[in-house]
């Protein structure tokens, strides 16, 4: 798969559902279309649900990186401004 350059990062490990998704969504809103966001999230419920939420909003999930410390980095490319 093509490489990517991370334009911005957001850490949502300090919040719980449903704020996890809201925080990720707000971070995406601040970016331009085509920009890549790295979202640091916790194992468990956040990694199960946030990627699906991001996909449902029409953005592109590029990669999920296991940080092997109970967190993941979800790499997302912003696809729309809605």
């Amino acid at each position: 798969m093509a490489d990517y350059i991370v334009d911005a990062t957001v850490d949502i490990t300090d919040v719980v559902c449903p704020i996890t998704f809201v925080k990720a969504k707000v971070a995406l809103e601040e970016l331009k279309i085509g920009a890549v966001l790295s979202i640091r999230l916790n194992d468990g419920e956040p990694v199960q649900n946030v990627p699906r939420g991001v996909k449902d909003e029409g953005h592109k999930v590029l990669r999920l990186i296991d940080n092997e410390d109970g967190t993941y980095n979800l790499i997302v490319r912003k696809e729309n401004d809605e």
Partner: protein
Amino acid sequence: MAIDYKALKNGGFMRQVQKNRFSMRLKVVGGNLTAKQLSAIADIATRYGNGYVHLTSRQGVEIPFIKLDDTDAVKKELEDSDVLSGVCGPRVRTVTACQGEKICPSGCIDTYALAVEISERYFGRELPHKFKFGVTGCQNNCLKAEENDLGVKGGYIINYTRENCTLCGLCAKVCREDAITVTKETLTLDPEKCTNCGRCVKSCPTDAWTGESGYILSFGGTFGNLIAKGKQRLPIIKDKAMFFRVADAALDFFDKYGGPGERFRVVIEREGWDKFQSAVDKAYATVS
């Protein structure tokens, strides 16, 4: 005047402890009511009842404190606003449903559409005892499918396309059954572990996983005096025509072998699960 309580119950009038007062049960399908229906119900509760309604445990609405003399007028007024009477007694009851795929991101099937079809086909059908259908959209089971005589749970029959896959590993992460293993080079699925929950499909960023909607059925659930979980006896069903053939077979089995006042579960256990299995297998195998 002699009161025909049986006839009243057929029409959804539940006798109250208060003399000559009835709690009027309304027909609700899949837990949805329109704003128009709600305002008609509110109006009737204000004018003929005690100004409130009761929400039942199965998504129904009852208007308590209706006077016997007012029943005809109440029925007529409600019907004018598309609100119909519910049923009680030995027949197919309210068909319940969660919001399903049309509203809920987790849903795998259109629960409301299916509930409407089930209701149109079976609602009010007389049987040896009450019979409950419930439709839930996914394995999260918000609607508690297995509590019902016949429960329906939505699922996905999953399919994997290697060419679309980036081996990102999300599906392996979201799978609650550990059915998917992803390494740097490969993805493997253990079909034995798959419960058709569809989480891999829902989360896949590249559509490498795709899913086809299906129905997972459970039979013989009951959660009243007797508590027993409905059992899954068939593989996931893809097409609606097959679902209805199987449901027809289940209801016919109940009708044929059930004695008055016997719940579906009791009948299956008395006749034997094997015998019931042959009845539904036959319907499952029939090609439409």
